[in-house]
């Protein structure tokens, strides 16, 4: 189930963050944050609650504008591009929200069709039906297609949200705390699904988490975010051996 640690990573950069700063008033959340992610990597950003992990991921997808710095994704600097260009980039990016963010007023089918229709992907209704069915089969919930999100359990909603991120065949998937609020068994299932998807679609993953099971099982590299900076960087095994107290606290 674990992502292969020995996978060769001599590939093109998918995401490159340079000298990123973001503050909210006097609260300096990101201070000269740097990160590079290569194609096929599964990188976990690990940090305490309130350390700026979600702010980072929202800057990457363009939901927040950083104060300074660059975020290069697919050759474009996200903070500088126009809305139309940003939408084109977003069509290549999957985003799994911490709260799932399923549209309450829509059925599961409509939730999955929404990104397809809104990104103006030129596909027939038959193709849409096939894509929705395939995405639901990938997460093992084909039978829920006509159900409303309120009728589903927490784990099922997370799976549907994951299916929605997959519908556009994204090149990179951003996961914001994918196991928060789930019981240990469901968490394990979701992590398994994430690694399965990574292998099947050869996507790149950026995972924001403080769940050490998720970190251990889903990552082939970990970045520790402390005081708004990339404090440490390495594999799970390397960082586990690190004696720095700010790193060690995560592995105790």
């Amino acid at each position, binding site marked *: 189930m674990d992502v292969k640690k020995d996978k060769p990573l001599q590939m093109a950069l998918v995401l490159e963050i340079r000298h990123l700063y973001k503050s909210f008033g006097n609260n300096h959340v990101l201070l000269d944050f740097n990160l590079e992610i290569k194609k096929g990597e599964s990188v976990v950003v690990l940090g305490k609650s309130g350390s700026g992990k979600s702010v980072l991921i*929202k800057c990457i*997808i363009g*939901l927040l504008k950083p104060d300074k710095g660059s975020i290069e994704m697919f050759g474009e600097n996200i903070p500088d591009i126009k809305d139309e260009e940003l939408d084109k980039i*977003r069509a290549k990016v999957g985003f799994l929200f911490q709260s799932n*963010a399923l*549209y*309450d007023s829509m059925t599961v089918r409509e939730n999955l069709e929404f*990104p397809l229709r*809104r990104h*103006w992907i030129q596909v027939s209704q038959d193709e849409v039906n096939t894509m929705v069915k395939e995405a639901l089969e990938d997460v093992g919930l084909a039978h829920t297609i006509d159900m409303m999100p309120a009728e589903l359990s927490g784990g099922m909603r997370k799976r549907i949200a994951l299916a929605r991120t997959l519908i556009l065949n994204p090149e990179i998937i951003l996961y914001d705390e994918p196991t928060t609020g789930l019981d240990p068994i469901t968490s394990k299932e979701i992590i398994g699904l994430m690694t399965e998807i990574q292998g099947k679609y050869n996507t790149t993953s950026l995972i924001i988490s403080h769940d050490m099971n998720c970190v251990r099982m889903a990552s082939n590299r970990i970045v520790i975010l402390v005081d708004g900076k990339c404090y440490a960087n390495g594999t799970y095994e390397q960082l586990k051996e690190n004696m720095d107290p700010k790193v060690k606290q995560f592995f105790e």
Partner: protein
Amino acid sequence: MSIASNLKLFLNEAGDMSRFTGRFFIQCFKPRHEFAELLRQCFVIGYKSLPLVGLTAFIMGLVLTLQLRPSMVDYGVESQLPAIVAISIVREIGPVITALIFAGKIGSSIGAELGSMKVTEQIDAMEVSGTNPFKYLVVTRVLAATIMLPVLVTLGDAISLYGSWLGVNIRGNTSFNLFWTQVVDNLSFNDVLPAFIKSYFFGFAVAIIGCYKGYNSSKGTEGVGRSANSAVVISSVMIFIIDLLAVQVTDILGFN
């Protein structure tokens, strides 16, 4: 809190609200337009409000007639009852009561719906899915409410007058044709047009306040409840303020 800090809060809120309204007008004219969602909202906001508006309007017409009747009899002008009721309903009571019912039903539902979408990151999810959430959620709802409230007011006025006809006939005996002839003969263009125009402003105010409160909802379920509540309270007060301004404007323009 001191008066100064309350005033500061009020002015900040008024400033934010004005910016939000300005953003609505900018986004309203920018392509891509969300016609399908606008039509859906017209159905949800307009058609689905009709039973409630119709019921309250019918009762309002009936009760108003029954309440007015004794005084009209005392003054010996009972025959003028349909005319008086028609003018009261069309000029003032119909638009204001319908708008208040509309604020209770639509203002609160918009505030709660957008508030809940905000706190559960659905608005962010829309943006990530290549959708301008302001245009998709706010512009469509505000336009739908602005278009549909005058329609509801017109239908509500008509239903109210049917209620009034029933009220007239509980104690008296007035034929349907005579009742409607009196109504139509006594209503003028000056009664109908200002009332119809102010309904557009009522609809706009209810929806923009509901959207503003929902879209800027603070985190948590308490914030959603507060958004829905304040959307109804502020839009109800706003309806009376617009009504007051409308009466002044129609007076200046010679519509009275």
